[in-house]
Structures are given as C-alpha cells and as structure tokens.
C-alpha cells in the first residue's frame, strides 16, 4: 500500500453508474428525424417535419393550435388512451386554452422508411419453411393470439404504412396501438435492437406535444410509454436514461394518484367513488411495476449493487418482493442474504416459492445433491391450477442440477419430457441443445430435430411462448 493512508477512505472508492449517487445530466433527445434520416433534410418531401423540434415543442406555441389544414379530425375526449373504464371525464379546468379538441400530426410514425425489414437469417430453418407459417392475409389479432410475433410485427408496420388503407396522421389512438404492437412484437421475436432503433422516432415523450390540450393527459398509452423507456435507453446507448425515464413516469403516477385520492375524499357519489377506487388501484399497480422496472434496469446495466440498494427501499409488502430480492442476492453471490429472505419457520408447511429459493441457494453453494432432493420433492407435489409452468421450471432446474452431478442421461430425459409437454421456452431449448452438444459429434441432427418438433406446435404452446424460434434458441 502506498503511504497515503490519509486519502484512503474506509469505504470503497466512488464509482459511476449507480443511480442517484452521481448527478446525471440528461442528454438532449435526438432522434432519427434529426440525424440519420436523409429525408429529414427535406421536410417538404412528405410534408412531415419533425413535430417535436424546438420551435414547436412548447405548449404555448401557436402552431399547435392551428387546425391542421388537411383533414381536421375531431376526437372525443373519451378517446384518450390509457383511460380507465370507470374514470370520469377529465376536468378541463386547468387549461387556459379554449376548448379545442387535441389534434396532433403523427405522420412521422407512418413513414415506411422508419420500419426495418426483418431478416430471415436468424430464424431456425424448420420455422422458415414450415407449412405453419401464417398466411399473409391473417388478421393482426389472430397473429398475436397464435404467437406469430414476427409476422405480427411485420403486419403492424404494414398497417402503419399502408397506402391503400391509410391511417389518418391524427388518429393517435390507432397509431400508438399499432406502434406498441410493432415494438412489443419485435422484442418478442428477438429483434429488440431493431425496436430500440424504431422507438427513437417517438423522440421526447415528455414533450408537451404529446399532451392533450383539453386536460393535459398524455396521448400515448401507458404501456407504450413504459416500453419506450427501456428501448430508448438502448437506442441512445445510455442505460441510465432508462432509469431516469422510469422516475419521470413514477412522478406522474404519484401525482395522478394523489389527485385521485384527494378527489375520492371529496366526492359523495357512489358511482364516482367506485370509478376512482378502480383508478387508484390501476395507478398503484403501475407505480409498483415501475419500481421493479427500475431495479431491473439497474440489473440490466450490471449494477447489481445499485439494484440491491434500490430494492431495499421498496415496500416489502408487495407480493413476491422477498423472492425477487432473494434472486438478486443469489445473482450477486450473497447466499446468506438470499436465505434470509425465506420467511417460513421450521416445521411449517413449506412455501413452494421459498423452496425454490432454498434449492437455488444450495446450487449456489455447489451442493447440487441437496438441490436435487428439493427439486424432486417439488415436482412430486400435486399440480394446482396455474402451477404447471412452475413445475416446468422446477423440472428444468432439476435437469441442470443433475448435469452438474454427472447425470447427463437423466437430465436429457427430463428436458425432453418438458419439450413433449409443449414447453419451448429459450432456456429449455438452449439447455437441451447444450446437452446434445455434449453427447455426440452429430448434435446438429438432434438440434434440428428438436427445432422441427417445436415448429409443429399448435395452440396455447405457441401463444404464450411465441412460435418462431431463432437459431440461438437451438445453438444452431
């Protein structure tokens, strides 16, 4: 050690990357409309200048209130997305503007050059040529229901850019619903990076341009705003932006919540009360969800320490919170802290989720045999409603434990049974493909056969796990 002990602090040295410690400067929002798109130099080309560029970004800008010359379209206030069914119409009281309905031009989201073509190359071959490939005329809701997420992403973009069945550039409800479908399906079919590029077209969602003139409500549905936070963080290659974006949304959720609660206290009408109670529940759920998303964002940027510190600030009463904390401790390697999250006392009927943590803790210690015992006990329990997928997880973890003990044949059998039971989640196909690679030089044959088997899937197995699998899922 150097002689400069005076400088050495008892704690560790400061580090960047944690939320809330170092002041973080928000970067100016830049989008493809400003930089990457050649068309942006020529706004006349499609009559679609970026509506979010500075001259227009203020609510006070008169340009916003000029009725669009082409096709003014009256939206009823009830069309505001994100509105809960029971909510009373928002009071226009706070608006100092005349009661003009909100018209906004979102034609920049309808431009074909915004949407990337999807490559076929990453799809596992049996899915590329399958007779199960959906017909191009299949309606979007059916594609979503059947787990054809890649086709749904393509269909959503096709609808947004259709010239035969053109969407009005002011029909924000339709545009944002399709845009959400596009982005969410891109993330589901392994094209998150493309989604992170396409989301940049939304630019700054905090801009007043996205607010209704009538009641200040956001025009973009909540789910798209939440999804956009992570994707924009990736698109701008700035994960901290994601964390800040969730905080922005959290602030809004809190303020909406406190307003609704104040209103509930002052109202007398039963019907309105019921509506408000429902609304409060929705926003409380959203706020809790944002908390987990902040923690997840910190984990994703590999700041597990920051995530652990943050999660200590979340209310422990939230369902499943101690399990989530335990998983984070395990990822960090603090096995004792993970075990401390298990609450049930000795002798009590053992909670299934806590048993999962116990088994994982043994695996973290390298005590695979102990873990096998717990996994086997869990699998032998009767399957209650909704627990079938938990059994699948436990059985696949049993298979992993067995492999570490030299029980590869048995591990393979367990995983193959899971595939036969209509499971096709990534870890399962990935782990089974890993075992195939271990047990023969001709693993490609086995992996292709596995992919072919899953390509033949129908029904719910598709809808809740996605149908089209990529090469990475099978290590092809």
């Amino acid at each position, binding site marked *: 050690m150097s002689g400069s002990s005076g400088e050495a602090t008892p704690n560790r040295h400061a580090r960047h990357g944690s939320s809330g410690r170092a002041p973080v400067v928000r970067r100016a929002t830049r989008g493809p409309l400003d930089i990457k798109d050649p068309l942006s130099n020529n706004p006349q080309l499609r009559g679609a200048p970026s509506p979010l560029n500075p001259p227009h970004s203020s609510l006070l800008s008169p340009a916003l209130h000029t009725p669009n010359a082409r096709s003014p379209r009256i939206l009823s206030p009830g069309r505001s997305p994100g509105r809960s069914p029971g909510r009373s119409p928002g009071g226009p009281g706070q608006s100092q503007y005349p009661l003009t309905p909100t018209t906004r031009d979102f034609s920049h989201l309808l431009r074909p050059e915004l949407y990337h073509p999807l490559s076929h190359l990453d799809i596992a071959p049996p899915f590329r040529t399958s007779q199960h490939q959906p017909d191009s005329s299949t309606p979007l809701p059916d594609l979503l229901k059947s787990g054809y997420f890649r086709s749904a992403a393509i269909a959503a973009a096709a609808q947004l850019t259709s010239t035969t069945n053109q969407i009005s550039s002011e029909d924000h409800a339709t545009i944002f619903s399709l845009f959400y479908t596009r982005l969410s399906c891109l993330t589901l079919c392994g094209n998150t990076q493309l989604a992170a590029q396409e989301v940049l077209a939304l630019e700054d969602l905090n801009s007043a341009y996205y607010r209704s003139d009538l009641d200040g409500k956001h025009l973009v549905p909540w789910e798209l705003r939440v999804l956009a936070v992570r994707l924009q963080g990736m698109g701008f290659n700035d994960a901290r932006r994601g964390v800040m974006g969730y905080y922005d949304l959290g602030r809004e959720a809190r303020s909406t919540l406190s307003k609704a609660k104040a209103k509930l206290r002052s109202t007398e009408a039963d019907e309105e009360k019921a509506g408000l109670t429902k609304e409060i529940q929705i926003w409380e759920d959203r706020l809790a969800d944002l908390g987990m998303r902040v923690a997840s964002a910190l984990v994703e940027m590999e700041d597990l320490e920051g995530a652990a510190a943050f999660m200590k600030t979340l209310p422990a009463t939230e369902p499943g919170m101690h399990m989530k904390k335990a998983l984070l401790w395990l990822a960090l390697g*603090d096995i004792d802290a993970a075990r401390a999250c298990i609450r049930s006392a000795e002798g009590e009927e053992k909670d299934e989720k806590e048993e999962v943590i116990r088994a994982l803790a043994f695996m973290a210690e390298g005590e695979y045999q102990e873990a096998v015992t717990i996994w086997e006990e869990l699998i032998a329990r009767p399957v209650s409603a909704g627990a079938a997928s938990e059994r699948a997880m436990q059985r696949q973890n049993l298979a992993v434990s067995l492999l570490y003990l030299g029980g590869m044949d048995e591990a393979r059998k367990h995983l193959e049974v899971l595939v036969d039971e209509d499971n096709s989640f990534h870890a399962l196909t990935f782990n089974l493909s890993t075992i195939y690679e*271990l047990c023969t030089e001709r693993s490609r044959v086995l992996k292709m056969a596995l992919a072919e088997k899953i390509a033949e899937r129908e029904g719910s197995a598709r809808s809740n796990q996605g149908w089209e699998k990529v090469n990475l899922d099978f290590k092809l």
Partner: protein
Amino acid sequence: MAHQRNVSTLEGVKEKHSVSLKVLRLSRPSLSTQHPLPTPLPSPTGTYASPAASLAYPSTDSHENFILSPLLTLPPAFGSAYVGETFSCTLCANNELLPSPSTSTKTISNVRIEAEMKIPSSATPIVLELGPSSALHDPDEAGAEGAKEKDGHELDAGKSLQKVVSFDLKEEGSHVLAVTVTYSETTPTSGRVRTFRKLYQFVCKGCMVVRTKTGVLPSSPKLPNQENEIRKWALEAQLENCGEETITLDTVILETNEGFKSTGLNWDLVPRGEEIERPILNPGDVQQVCFMVEEIQRGPEPEDGRLIFGVLSIGWRGPMGNRGYLSTGSLGTRLR
C-alpha cells in the same frame, strides 16, 4: 473452451475414432433473464401478445415483473478463469457408432477417461480425480462400482460416459487440461485398444489484488502482573477486484501466528440484531479492511528483524455463488 488443441496420438488421423470427447466448463448456472412487457389494460377491442410470452418461462404469476427469474441456464461460454476459484468441467466420452447393427458390427467397451492439469509452475501435470464414481440413482451400477472403475465402462452405440473434474486454480497463467480417452473397439474378427488425447488450454487471471500496510498503535499500559507492556499494531489492507465480474466479499480473516491475536474492525462488526451487509465489489472497486493486532503476554521472537503476524485469508463469492478463496503470504512488521 477458450482454446482447443487437437492432438491425436498413436493413430494420428488415419481412421476416425468411434468415440468422441466433448467438454463443458461447469461454471455456475445463471438465472435466466426476462423483460416482461408492460401490458395494456384489458379492453374489448385491444389485442396484444400474451403477457407470458415475454417471460423466461410461461409463468402465470401476474407479479412476474422482475428481470431475474428462478429458471436456470447452463453456462453459454467458457468465461474467465480466476485465481482462487475452483475450475470445474464435465467430460463426456460418446460412442459415435450408429445404433443400427446392419451398418456396423463394431462394439465399444472398456471406455476410460483420464484427465490431467498442466499448471505454469510445474512441468509435471497434476492427475485429476474423476467424479462421480458411479452413475446417479442407479443402484445396479453402484454395486459393481469398484471393478468397473478399473476395467472401464461398457458403452452402447449412442451412449455417453460423463465425468466431472474439479481443480483449484492457484496460479496465474496458462493452464492446459489434457484428457485421454482409451477404449476397446471390437469387430467380429478383431479387437484393438484405441486412444486419443485432447488438450484444452485456458488462461487463469488474478481477480483479487491485496495491498497491505502496518502501523504501530500506542501500547496498552503495563499491568502490574505483566513483565512488558502489550504492543499493538494496525494492519490495513486494500482488496481490489481486478477481475471482470462483480464479487461479494464473504470472509476476510487475519489468521494470526502464535503469540498474537487480531480483531477485525470491518463490516462484520455490527451491533447485535443488525444484519451484516457484505461488501460488493464491482470490477475495479477497492475495499479497505483493518485489523488490530495485539501481542499476547510475551512477544514472539522476530525473524530477520521482522515480526510475522500471520496471513490474511479472503473468501468471496462471484455471480451465482461461484466461490473464490485465497490467502496472502506472511504479513508482519519490521522492527526498528
């Protein structure tokens, strides 16, 4: 593996082997990650993807909104190897003959795997013990265990023999895992013993850098029944995580030689009833620790003008509990 050298001895490349060798480093399995999609409020017109589709496995738990799931994924790559960790690896000898008897009349028996680790400081490789000694949950095989181990294993077409080796990494530098597979190949007319050897090279890096400093503390006043006053020192150490993974410090103990006792002044010193918060070290982070070292009664003799207190043992856990452990050389103070 990071780097594989394929050296076929004896038979060279003359004839394709009927048995293949496949290896996988058994680092800890990881928790599968997921990015749960925010789902729209239910509405009669809206359709959206099933919320389960964005989860690591199709859980029906509506509170699944965290990035980590309990579902385990096998290690996708070799990763980094660090001093202090236990290197663990599975070796699979596979009978690659096609199961149909019409094309091949060969049979494979007597399959044996041997593994050695070549380390930087020694020219002689270290023979590794292969576990487990018998297949799991198979009482038949477990019974005849002893004899079978010596003679090697019967291996039907398409079957595999799996073994697991472990090795404590103690040195930085290039390591070579050498695996030899020996088997008997029998046809109706002849039989022969065949063998091949594969080498897997990887580099082991340091993960924990330790810097220490000793300072003299004021001695305790002499008690009436003591001959000398009791000398005291403060031993400080900086522990730097110079690996690429986040680690959690588990134990840091000054193991004292006879004649000394040490008191840790670190994170495990918490008031009764409070949780111990173990320090988390991200790559590049430094944790400072401090120990008070005291003489017990009569001071031990110095060697070459140095008093040796003992050694520092450091234990940590990496991602998913991967354990690391090392102890320093002798630490002490120079007497003036």
